[in-house]
Protein backbone atom coordinates (compact mmCIF):
# COMPACT_ATOMS: atom_id res chain seq x y z
CA UNK A 1 0.00 0.00 0.00
CA UNK A 2 1.70 3.19 -1.08
CA UNK A 3 2.74 5.73 1.51
CA UNK A 4 -0.08 7.81 2.77
CA UNK A 5 -3.02 5.94 1.38
CA UNK A 6 -4.83 4.02 4.08
CA UNK A 7 -7.97 3.01 2.19
CA UNK A 8 -7.61 1.81 -1.37
CA UNK A 9 -10.53 0.38 -3.30
CA UNK A 10 -10.11 -0.54 -6.94
CA UNK A 11 -13.05 -1.77 -9.03
CA UNK A 12 -14.75 -3.26 -5.99
CA UNK A 13 -18.33 -4.45 -6.24
CA UNK A 14 -20.38 -4.45 -3.07
CA UNK A 15 -22.93 -7.19 -2.66
CA UNK A 16 -25.54 -7.56 0.06
CA UNK A 17 -26.20 -11.29 -0.18
CA UNK A 18 -26.74 -11.74 -3.93
CA UNK A 19 -27.83 -8.17 -4.64
CA UNK A 20 -25.35 -5.87 -6.25
CA UNK A 21 -25.42 -2.61 -4.29
CA UNK A 22 -22.45 -0.72 -5.67
CA UNK A 23 -20.46 -1.62 -8.79
CA UNK A 24 -16.91 -0.73 -9.71
CA UNK A 25 -16.11 1.36 -6.69
CA UNK A 26 -12.66 2.93 -6.87
CA UNK A 27 -11.58 5.32 -4.19
CA UNK A 28 -8.61 6.15 -2.05
CA UNK A 29 -8.39 7.93 1.25
CA UNK A 30 -5.10 9.02 2.73
CA UNK A 31 -4.03 9.79 6.25
CA UNK A 32 -5.10 13.18 7.58
CA UNK A 33 -7.97 13.21 5.15
CA UNK A 34 -11.56 13.91 6.05
CA UNK A 35 -14.19 12.77 3.57
CA UNK A 36 -17.96 12.88 3.52
CA UNK A 37 -19.95 10.07 2.02
CA UNK A 38 -23.38 11.24 0.98
CA UNK A 39 -26.30 9.82 -0.87
CA UNK A 40 -29.95 9.11 -0.34
CA UNK A 41 -31.00 6.29 1.93
CA UNK A 42 -30.64 2.89 0.33
CA UNK A 43 -27.91 3.96 -2.07
CA UNK A 44 -25.29 1.82 -0.35
CA UNK A 45 -23.47 4.14 2.04
CA UNK A 46 -23.76 1.70 4.92
CA UNK A 47 -22.92 -1.24 2.69
CA UNK A 48 -19.74 0.49 1.60
CA UNK A 49 -18.88 1.10 5.25
CA UNK A 50 -19.59 -2.54 6.06
CA UNK A 51 -17.30 -3.59 3.26
CA UNK A 52 -14.53 -1.47 4.74
CA UNK A 53 -14.78 -3.20 8.09
CA UNK A 54 -15.12 -6.65 6.51
CA UNK A 55 -18.71 -7.26 7.49
CA UNK A 56 -19.50 -7.70 3.81
CA UNK A 57 -17.03 -9.70 1.71
CA UNK A 58 -15.18 -8.23 -1.24
CA UNK A 59 -15.67 -10.52 -4.22
CA UNK A 60 -14.22 -8.53 -7.12
CA UNK A 61 -11.50 -5.94 -7.51
CA UNK A 62 -8.87 -5.14 -4.93
CA UNK A 63 -9.41 -3.60 -1.53
CA UNK A 64 -6.91 -2.61 1.11
CA UNK A 65 -7.75 -1.07 4.46
CA UNK A 66 -5.10 -0.20 7.05
CA UNK A 67 -2.73 -2.75 5.59
CA UNK A 68 -5.25 -5.62 5.36
CA UNK A 69 -6.15 -7.09 1.98
CA UNK A 70 -9.92 -7.46 2.18
CA UNK A 71 -9.99 -10.04 -0.63
CA UNK A 72 -7.75 -12.36 1.32
CA UNK A 73 -8.65 -11.50 4.91
CA UNK A 74 -9.43 -14.53 7.07
CA UNK A 75 -12.09 -14.80 9.71
CA UNK A 76 -9.64 -14.71 12.59
CA UNK A 77 -7.89 -11.63 11.20
CA UNK A 78 -11.05 -9.54 11.07
CA UNK A 79 -10.96 -8.51 14.76
CA UNK A 80 -7.47 -7.12 14.24
CA UNK A 81 -8.59 -5.09 11.24
CA UNK A 82 -11.46 -3.67 13.30
CA UNK A 83 -9.11 -2.63 16.06
CA UNK A 84 -7.34 -0.34 13.62
CA UNK A 85 -10.67 1.23 12.77
CA UNK A 86 -12.83 3.35 14.98
CA UNK A 87 -16.32 2.57 13.86
CA UNK A 88 -19.36 4.61 14.78
CA UNK A 89 -22.24 2.36 13.89
CA UNK A 90 -25.51 3.66 12.61
CA UNK A 91 -27.29 1.52 15.17
CA UNK A 92 -24.65 2.24 17.86
CA UNK A 93 -23.97 -1.45 18.69
CA UNK A 94 -23.55 -0.70 22.38
CA UNK A 95 -23.41 -3.65 24.74
CA UNK A 96 -26.80 -3.23 26.39
CA UNK A 97 -26.05 -5.42 29.37
CA UNK A 98 -23.40 -3.18 30.90
CA UNK A 99 -22.69 0.43 31.81
CA UNK A 100 -21.13 3.04 29.54
CA UNK A 101 -17.80 2.71 31.35
CA UNK A 102 -17.91 -1.05 30.95
CA UNK A 103 -18.75 -0.66 27.27
CA UNK A 104 -15.58 1.32 26.73
CA UNK A 105 -13.61 -0.99 29.00
CA UNK A 106 -14.72 -3.98 26.96
CA UNK A 107 -13.07 -2.51 23.88
CA UNK A 108 -9.98 -1.61 25.86
CA UNK A 109 -9.68 -5.09 27.37
CA UNK A 110 -10.25 -6.65 23.97
CA UNK A 111 -7.41 -4.61 22.54
CA UNK A 112 -4.98 -5.43 25.29
CA UNK A 113 -5.19 -2.58 27.79
CA UNK A 114 -4.04 -3.78 31.20
CA UNK A 115 -3.28 -0.80 33.44
CA UNK A 116 -6.50 0.18 35.15
CA UNK A 117 -5.30 3.69 36.00
CA UNK A 118 -4.43 4.41 32.38
CA UNK A 119 -7.72 2.90 31.33
CA UNK A 120 -9.74 5.10 33.67
CA UNK A 121 -7.83 8.14 32.49
CA UNK A 122 -8.40 7.39 28.81
CA UNK A 123 -12.02 6.57 29.47
CA UNK A 124 -12.64 9.92 31.08
CA UNK A 125 -10.79 11.67 28.29
CA UNK A 126 -12.95 10.27 25.53
CA UNK A 127 -16.17 10.69 27.49
CA UNK A 128 -15.25 14.31 28.08
CA UNK A 129 -14.63 14.77 24.36
CA UNK A 130 -18.23 13.84 23.64
CA UNK A 131 -19.59 15.63 26.70
CA UNK A 132 -20.67 12.56 28.67
CA UNK A 133 -18.20 12.66 31.56
CA UNK A 134 -21.00 12.30 34.12
CA UNK A 135 -22.81 9.41 32.48
CA UNK A 136 -20.19 6.68 32.79
CA UNK A 137 -22.17 4.63 35.29
CA UNK A 138 -25.44 4.64 33.38
CA UNK A 139 -26.75 1.74 31.39
CA UNK A 140 -27.14 2.41 27.65
CA UNK A 141 -30.93 2.15 27.83
CA UNK A 142 -30.98 4.96 30.37
CA UNK A 143 -29.47 7.36 27.86
CA UNK A 144 -31.24 9.21 25.07
CA UNK A 145 -30.60 8.27 21.45
CA UNK A 146 -28.24 11.21 21.04
CA UNK A 147 -26.32 10.28 24.15
CA UNK A 148 -26.02 6.68 23.02
CA UNK A 149 -24.69 7.91 19.71
CA UNK A 150 -22.07 9.95 21.51
CA UNK A 151 -21.06 6.89 23.52
CA UNK A 152 -20.58 5.08 20.21
CA UNK A 153 -18.34 7.93 19.06
CA UNK A 154 -16.37 7.88 22.31
CA UNK A 155 -15.88 4.15 21.92
CA UNK A 156 -14.63 4.61 18.36
CA UNK A 157 -12.06 7.10 19.64
CA UNK A 158 -10.84 5.13 22.59
CA UNK A 159 -8.00 3.33 20.84
CA UNK A 160 -6.91 6.34 18.81
CA UNK A 161 -7.48 4.41 15.56
CA UNK A 162 -5.89 5.07 12.19
CA UNK A 163 -9.21 5.29 10.43
CA UNK A 164 -12.57 6.42 11.72
CA UNK A 165 -15.61 5.19 9.86
CA UNK A 166 -18.66 7.04 11.02
CA UNK A 167 -22.04 5.97 9.73
CA UNK A 168 -24.36 8.92 10.27
CA UNK A 169 -22.76 9.89 13.57
CA UNK A 170 -24.93 12.96 13.92
CA UNK A 171 -28.18 11.33 12.89
CA UNK A 172 -29.72 11.62 16.36
CA UNK A 173 -28.06 14.80 17.51
CA UNK A 174 -29.23 18.38 17.70
CA UNK A 175 -27.43 20.85 15.41
CA UNK A 176 -25.13 22.14 18.13
CA UNK A 177 -23.98 18.71 19.24
CA UNK A 178 -23.61 17.73 15.60
CA UNK A 179 -21.27 20.61 15.00
CA UNK A 180 -19.28 19.65 18.04
CA UNK A 181 -18.91 16.09 16.79
CA UNK A 182 -17.92 17.11 13.29
CA UNK A 183 -15.33 19.57 14.41
CA UNK A 184 -14.03 16.89 16.76
CA UNK A 185 -13.73 14.43 13.86
CA UNK A 186 -12.05 17.06 11.71
CA UNK A 187 -9.53 17.77 14.45
CA UNK A 188 -8.82 14.07 14.71
CA UNK A 189 -8.22 13.79 10.98
CA UNK A 190 -5.60 16.54 11.27
CA UNK A 191 -3.56 14.37 13.63
CA UNK A 192 -2.85 11.91 10.82
CA UNK A 193 -6.04 9.86 10.97
CA UNK A 194 -8.38 9.25 8.10
CA UNK A 195 -12.06 9.93 8.64
CA UNK A 196 -14.86 8.76 6.39
CA UNK A 197 -18.24 9.99 7.48
CA UNK A 198 -21.54 9.02 5.95
CA UNK A 199 -24.15 11.68 6.46
CA UNK A 200 -27.38 13.28 5.35
CA UNK A 201 -26.62 16.51 7.03
CA UNK A 202 -26.08 18.76 4.02
CA UNK A 203 -25.99 21.89 6.12
CA UNK A 204 -22.75 20.66 7.63
CA UNK A 205 -20.55 20.61 4.60
CA UNK A 206 -21.14 24.20 3.93
CA UNK A 207 -19.86 25.00 7.34
CA UNK A 208 -17.16 22.33 7.40
CA UNK A 209 -16.24 21.79 3.75
CA UNK A 210 -14.26 18.67 2.85
CA UNK A 211 -13.86 16.17 0.11
CA UNK A 212 -17.24 14.62 -0.68
CA UNK A 213 -18.14 11.30 -2.25
CA UNK A 214 -21.64 10.53 -3.41
CA UNK A 215 -23.41 7.18 -3.68
CA UNK A 216 -25.83 7.27 -6.57
CA UNK A 217 -27.23 4.75 -9.09
CA UNK A 218 -25.01 1.97 -7.80
CA UNK A 219 -21.83 4.00 -8.13
CA UNK A 220 -19.60 6.11 -5.92
CA UNK A 221 -18.78 9.39 -7.61
CA UNK A 222 -16.59 12.24 -6.37
CA UNK A 223 -18.21 15.65 -6.05
CA UNK A 224 -16.53 18.98 -6.34
Amino acid at each position, binding site marked *: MPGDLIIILDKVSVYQNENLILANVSLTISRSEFAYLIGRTGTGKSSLMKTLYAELPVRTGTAGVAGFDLRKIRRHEIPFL*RRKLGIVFQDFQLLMDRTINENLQFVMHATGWKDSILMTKRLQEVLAKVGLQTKG*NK*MPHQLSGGEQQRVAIARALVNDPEIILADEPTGNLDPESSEGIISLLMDISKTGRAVLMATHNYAMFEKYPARTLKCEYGKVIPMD
Partner: protein
Amino acid sequence: MKNSDQSYQKRRLATSYVTTIISITMVLFMLGLLGMLVLHAKNLSDYVKENIGFSIIIKEGVKEADILELQKKLDKEEYVKTTEYITRERAAREFSEELGEDFVGFLGYNPLLPSIELRLHASYANPDSIRLIEERLIAYPGVKEVDYHKPLVDEINQNVERISLVILGISLILLIIAIALINNTIRLSVYSKRFLIRSMQLVGGTQKFIQKPFLAKAIVNGFFSSIIAIGLLLLVLYFATNEMPELLDFQDLELFGILFALVIFLGIMISWISTYFAIRKYIRMKTDSLYS
Protein backbone atom coordinates in the same frame (compact mmCIF):
# COMPACT_ATOMS: atom_id res chain seq x y z
CA MET B 1 -33.78 5.49 40.74
CA LYS B 2 -30.51 4.67 39.12
CA ASN B 3 -29.62 2.10 41.74
CA SER B 4 -32.97 0.37 41.70
CA ASP B 5 -32.82 0.18 37.91
CA GLN B 6 -29.40 -1.35 38.02
CA SER B 7 -30.27 -3.85 40.66
CA TYR B 8 -33.32 -4.78 38.62
CA GLN B 9 -31.03 -5.41 35.65
CA LYS B 10 -28.76 -7.56 37.74
CA ARG B 11 -31.64 -9.48 39.22
CA ARG B 12 -33.00 -10.17 35.78
CA LEU B 13 -29.66 -11.51 34.64
CA ALA B 14 -29.40 -13.57 37.81
CA THR B 15 -32.77 -15.21 37.18
CA SER B 16 -31.68 -16.30 33.73
CA TYR B 17 -28.61 -17.95 35.27
CA VAL B 18 -30.80 -19.54 37.93
CA THR B 19 -33.02 -21.06 35.25
CA THR B 20 -30.01 -22.54 33.51
CA ILE B 21 -28.61 -23.86 36.78
CA ILE B 22 -31.95 -25.41 37.75
CA SER B 23 -32.29 -27.17 34.41
CA ILE B 24 -28.78 -28.56 34.57
CA THR B 25 -29.28 -29.55 38.21
CA MET B 26 -32.45 -31.49 37.43
CA VAL B 27 -30.84 -33.44 34.65
CA LEU B 28 -27.69 -34.18 36.64
CA PHE B 29 -29.86 -35.27 39.57
CA MET B 30 -31.71 -37.74 37.37
CA LEU B 31 -28.44 -39.08 36.02
CA GLY B 32 -26.96 -39.37 39.49
CA LEU B 33 -30.06 -41.14 40.75
CA LEU B 34 -29.74 -43.67 38.01
CA GLY B 35 -26.04 -44.00 38.75
CA MET B 36 -26.88 -44.77 42.36
CA LEU B 37 -29.43 -47.30 41.21
CA VAL B 38 -26.80 -49.01 39.07
CA LEU B 39 -24.37 -49.03 41.97
CA HIS B 40 -27.05 -50.47 44.18
CA ALA B 41 -28.34 -52.98 41.68
CA LYS B 42 -25.49 -55.28 42.67
CA ASN B 43 -26.04 -54.64 46.36
CA LEU B 44 -29.73 -55.28 45.98
CA SER B 45 -29.30 -58.47 43.99
CA ASP B 46 -26.64 -59.67 46.44
CA TYR B 47 -29.03 -58.85 49.26
CA VAL B 48 -31.76 -60.93 47.66
CA LYS B 49 -29.44 -63.78 46.71
CA GLU B 50 -27.85 -63.99 50.14
CA ASN B 51 -31.26 -64.31 51.71
CA ILE B 52 -32.19 -67.42 49.80
CA GLY B 53 -33.08 -69.92 52.52
CA PHE B 54 -31.02 -73.11 52.56
CA SER B 55 -31.91 -75.69 55.21
CA ILE B 56 -29.77 -78.71 56.04
CA ILE B 57 -31.98 -81.21 57.82
CA ILE B 58 -30.10 -83.42 60.26
CA LYS B 59 -30.86 -87.11 60.65
CA GLU B 60 -32.77 -88.41 63.65
CA GLY B 61 -30.59 -89.21 66.66
CA VAL B 62 -27.46 -87.27 65.73
CA LYS B 63 -25.84 -85.87 68.89
CA GLU B 64 -25.85 -82.15 69.45
CA ALA B 65 -22.06 -82.08 69.75
CA ASP B 66 -21.81 -83.61 66.24
CA ILE B 67 -24.24 -81.06 64.87
CA LEU B 68 -22.19 -78.21 66.32
CA GLU B 69 -19.08 -79.84 64.87
CA LEU B 70 -20.80 -79.91 61.45
CA GLN B 71 -21.77 -76.27 61.83
CA LYS B 72 -18.13 -75.38 62.49
CA LYS B 73 -17.04 -77.26 59.38
CA LEU B 74 -19.67 -75.51 57.30
CA ASP B 75 -18.56 -72.11 58.62
CA LYS B 76 -15.14 -72.79 57.13
CA GLU B 77 -16.54 -73.46 53.63
CA GLU B 78 -15.89 -70.57 51.28
CA TYR B 79 -19.42 -70.51 49.88
CA VAL B 80 -21.05 -70.13 53.29
CA LYS B 81 -21.88 -66.68 54.50
CA THR B 82 -23.66 -67.53 57.78
CA THR B 83 -24.95 -70.61 59.52
CA GLU B 84 -27.52 -70.96 62.22
CA TYR B 85 -28.23 -74.05 64.25
CA ILE B 86 -31.93 -74.61 64.82
CA THR B 87 -32.70 -77.12 67.56
CA ARG B 88 -35.76 -79.37 67.50
CA GLU B 89 -37.34 -77.33 70.27
CA ARG B 90 -36.82 -74.07 68.49
CA ALA B 91 -38.15 -75.54 65.25
CA ALA B 92 -41.23 -76.76 67.09
CA ARG B 93 -41.76 -73.41 68.79
CA GLU B 94 -41.48 -71.49 65.52
CA PHE B 95 -43.74 -73.90 63.71
CA SER B 96 -46.35 -73.69 66.48
CA GLU B 97 -46.30 -69.93 66.27
CA GLU B 98 -46.80 -70.18 62.55
CA LEU B 99 -49.67 -72.63 62.91
CA GLY B 100 -51.14 -70.86 65.91
CA GLU B 101 -51.66 -74.26 67.50
CA ASP B 102 -49.62 -76.32 69.95
CA PHE B 103 -49.11 -79.34 67.73
CA VAL B 104 -46.50 -80.91 70.01
CA GLY B 105 -49.07 -81.15 72.81
CA PHE B 106 -51.62 -82.41 70.31
CA LEU B 107 -49.36 -85.09 68.88
CA GLY B 108 -47.73 -85.91 72.19
CA TYR B 109 -44.20 -85.73 70.69
CA ASN B 110 -42.03 -83.41 68.53
CA PRO B 111 -41.78 -84.77 64.97
CA LEU B 112 -39.40 -82.07 63.78
CA LEU B 113 -35.71 -82.66 63.15
CA PRO B 114 -32.89 -80.26 64.03
CA SER B 115 -31.47 -78.29 61.12
CA ILE B 116 -28.80 -75.82 60.10
CA GLU B 117 -29.96 -72.71 58.27
CA LEU B 118 -27.44 -71.65 55.67
CA ARG B 119 -26.95 -68.37 53.79
CA LEU B 120 -24.73 -68.50 50.72
CA HIS B 121 -22.43 -65.81 49.39
CA ALA B 122 -24.05 -64.05 46.45
CA SER B 123 -21.50 -65.29 43.93
CA TYR B 124 -22.43 -68.93 44.73
CA ALA B 125 -26.19 -68.32 44.62
CA ASN B 126 -26.71 -69.51 41.07
CA PRO B 127 -28.32 -72.77 39.99
CA ASP B 128 -25.10 -74.52 38.90
CA SER B 129 -23.13 -73.81 42.05
CA ILE B 130 -26.10 -74.63 44.23
CA ARG B 131 -26.38 -78.08 42.69
CA LEU B 132 -22.71 -78.81 43.46
CA ILE B 133 -23.05 -77.39 46.94
CA GLU B 134 -26.10 -79.56 47.51
CA GLU B 135 -24.14 -82.67 46.54
CA ARG B 136 -21.29 -81.81 48.87
CA LEU B 137 -23.63 -81.07 51.76
CA ILE B 138 -25.47 -84.35 51.40
CA ALA B 139 -22.12 -86.16 51.57
CA TYR B 140 -21.55 -84.93 55.15
CA PRO B 141 -22.32 -87.58 57.77
CA GLY B 142 -25.53 -86.95 59.64
CA VAL B 143 -27.17 -84.88 56.90
CA LYS B 144 -30.61 -86.19 55.96
CA GLU B 145 -31.53 -83.80 53.20
CA VAL B 146 -30.91 -80.33 51.84
CA ASP B 147 -33.96 -78.15 51.37
CA TYR B 148 -34.28 -74.99 49.30
CA HIS B 149 -36.70 -73.36 46.90
CA LYS B 150 -35.27 -74.34 43.54
CA PRO B 151 -37.56 -72.28 41.22
CA LEU B 152 -36.95 -69.21 43.37
CA VAL B 153 -33.19 -69.41 42.81
CA ASP B 154 -33.66 -69.65 39.05
CA GLU B 155 -36.11 -66.81 39.01
CA ILE B 156 -33.96 -64.46 41.06
CA ASN B 157 -30.99 -65.04 38.82
CA GLN B 158 -32.93 -64.45 35.65
CA ASN B 159 -34.58 -61.31 36.96
CA VAL B 160 -31.38 -59.77 38.23
CA GLU B 161 -29.87 -60.18 34.79
CA ARG B 162 -32.88 -58.69 33.07
CA ILE B 163 -33.13 -55.75 35.45
CA SER B 164 -29.43 -54.95 35.06
CA LEU B 165 -29.84 -54.79 31.29
CA VAL B 166 -32.90 -52.57 31.57
CA ILE B 167 -31.15 -50.19 33.96
CA LEU B 168 -28.13 -50.01 31.68
CA GLY B 169 -30.36 -49.22 28.69
CA ILE B 170 -32.26 -46.54 30.59
CA SER B 171 -29.00 -44.99 31.76
CA LEU B 172 -27.76 -44.65 28.21
CA ILE B 173 -31.00 -43.12 26.99
CA LEU B 174 -31.10 -40.74 29.94
CA LEU B 175 -27.51 -39.69 29.32
CA ILE B 176 -28.40 -38.75 25.76
CA ILE B 177 -31.52 -36.91 26.94
CA ALA B 178 -29.45 -35.13 29.57
CA ILE B 179 -26.90 -33.91 27.06
CA ALA B 180 -29.63 -32.81 24.64
CA LEU B 181 -31.57 -30.94 27.35
CA ILE B 182 -28.58 -29.14 28.82
CA ASN B 183 -27.35 -28.31 25.34
CA ASN B 184 -30.75 -26.89 24.46
CA THR B 185 -30.99 -24.77 27.59
CA ILE B 186 -27.56 -23.33 27.00
CA ARG B 187 -28.19 -22.66 23.33
CA LEU B 188 -31.29 -20.73 24.26
CA SER B 189 -29.44 -18.59 26.77
CA VAL B 190 -26.68 -17.91 24.24
CA TYR B 191 -29.28 -17.23 21.56
CA SER B 192 -30.74 -14.48 23.71
CA LYS B 193 -27.31 -12.84 23.69
CA ARG B 194 -26.64 -13.16 19.97
CA PHE B 195 -26.82 -9.42 19.29
CA LEU B 196 -24.54 -8.71 22.20
CA ILE B 197 -22.07 -11.17 20.74
CA ARG B 198 -22.41 -9.50 17.34
CA SER B 199 -21.69 -6.07 18.85
CA MET B 200 -18.63 -7.45 20.60
CA GLN B 201 -17.39 -8.73 17.26
CA LEU B 202 -18.01 -5.43 15.53
CA VAL B 203 -15.84 -3.55 17.99
CA GLY B 204 -12.96 -5.95 17.41
CA GLY B 205 -13.33 -8.71 19.99
CA THR B 206 -11.68 -11.97 18.93
CA GLN B 207 -13.62 -15.22 19.24
CA LYS B 208 -11.49 -16.22 22.21
CA PHE B 209 -11.98 -12.91 23.99
CA ILE B 210 -15.74 -12.93 23.48
CA GLN B 211 -16.06 -16.55 24.58
CA LYS B 212 -13.96 -16.26 27.71
CA PRO B 213 -16.53 -14.74 30.09
CA PHE B 214 -19.29 -16.98 28.73
CA LEU B 215 -17.17 -20.09 29.21
CA ALA B 216 -16.13 -19.04 32.69
CA LYS B 217 -19.78 -18.56 33.57
CA ALA B 218 -20.61 -21.93 32.01
CA ILE B 219 -18.03 -23.68 34.16
CA VAL B 220 -19.29 -21.96 37.31
CA ASN B 221 -22.91 -22.80 36.39
CA GLY B 222 -22.01 -26.42 35.66
CA PHE B 223 -20.14 -26.68 38.93
CA PHE B 224 -22.93 -25.19 41.04
CA SER B 225 -25.50 -27.35 39.28
CA SER B 226 -23.57 -30.51 40.04
CA ILE B 227 -23.05 -29.47 43.67
CA ILE B 228 -26.80 -28.91 44.10
CA ALA B 229 -27.52 -32.20 42.32
CA ILE B 230 -25.12 -34.01 44.64
CA GLY B 231 -26.82 -32.40 47.63
CA LEU B 232 -30.16 -33.73 46.42
CA LEU B 233 -28.65 -37.18 45.82
CA LEU B 234 -27.25 -37.26 49.36
CA LEU B 235 -30.69 -36.36 50.66
CA VAL B 236 -32.21 -39.24 48.73
CA LEU B 237 -29.48 -41.54 49.98
CA TYR B 238 -30.12 -40.41 53.54
CA PHE B 239 -33.80 -41.24 53.38
CA ALA B 240 -33.19 -44.48 51.52
CA THR B 241 -30.68 -45.74 54.09
CA ASN B 242 -33.11 -44.84 56.86
CA GLU B 243 -35.56 -47.22 55.26
CA MET B 244 -33.05 -49.87 54.29
CA PRO B 245 -29.80 -49.72 56.30
CA GLU B 246 -28.26 -52.59 54.30
CA LEU B 247 -28.05 -50.28 51.29
CA LEU B 248 -24.93 -48.55 52.46
CA ASP B 249 -21.78 -50.28 53.54
CA PHE B 250 -18.35 -48.83 53.86
CA GLN B 251 -16.80 -50.08 50.68
CA ASP B 252 -19.51 -48.15 48.83
CA LEU B 253 -18.18 -44.79 49.98
CA GLU B 254 -15.46 -44.90 47.38
CA LEU B 255 -17.97 -45.78 44.67
CA PHE B 256 -20.13 -42.85 45.70
CA GLY B 257 -17.10 -40.61 45.58
CA ILE B 258 -16.49 -41.71 42.01
CA LEU B 259 -20.15 -41.23 41.12
CA PHE B 260 -20.20 -37.69 42.55
CA ALA B 261 -16.94 -36.79 40.83
CA LEU B 262 -18.51 -38.04 37.62
CA VAL B 263 -21.57 -35.84 38.19
CA ILE B 264 -19.34 -32.77 38.66
CA PHE B 265 -17.27 -33.68 35.62
CA LEU B 266 -20.35 -34.19 33.45
CA GLY B 267 -21.96 -30.98 34.70
CA ILE B 268 -18.93 -28.87 33.88
CA MET B 269 -18.07 -30.58 30.61
CA ILE B 270 -21.57 -30.56 29.12
CA SER B 271 -22.11 -26.95 30.13
CA TRP B 272 -18.71 -25.89 28.82
CA ILE B 273 -18.83 -27.73 25.51
CA SER B 274 -22.41 -26.63 24.77
CA THR B 275 -21.55 -23.00 25.48
CA TYR B 276 -18.45 -23.21 23.35
CA PHE B 277 -20.29 -24.50 20.31
CA ALA B 278 -23.33 -22.28 20.80
CA ILE B 279 -21.20 -19.14 20.88
CA ARG B 280 -19.05 -20.25 18.01
CA LYS B 281 -22.19 -20.73 15.98
CA TYR B 282 -23.32 -17.15 16.51
CA ILE B 283 -19.87 -15.73 16.01
CA ARG B 284 -19.67 -17.39 12.61
CA MET B 285 -23.20 -16.53 11.60
CA LYS B 286 -23.87 -13.71 9.18
CA THR B 287 -25.66 -10.70 10.63
CA ASP B 288 -28.68 -11.24 8.40
CA SER B 289 -29.21 -14.74 9.77
CA LEU B 290 -29.32 -13.41 13.34
CA TYR B 291 -32.70 -11.86 12.68
CA SER B 292 -34.39 -14.93 11.27
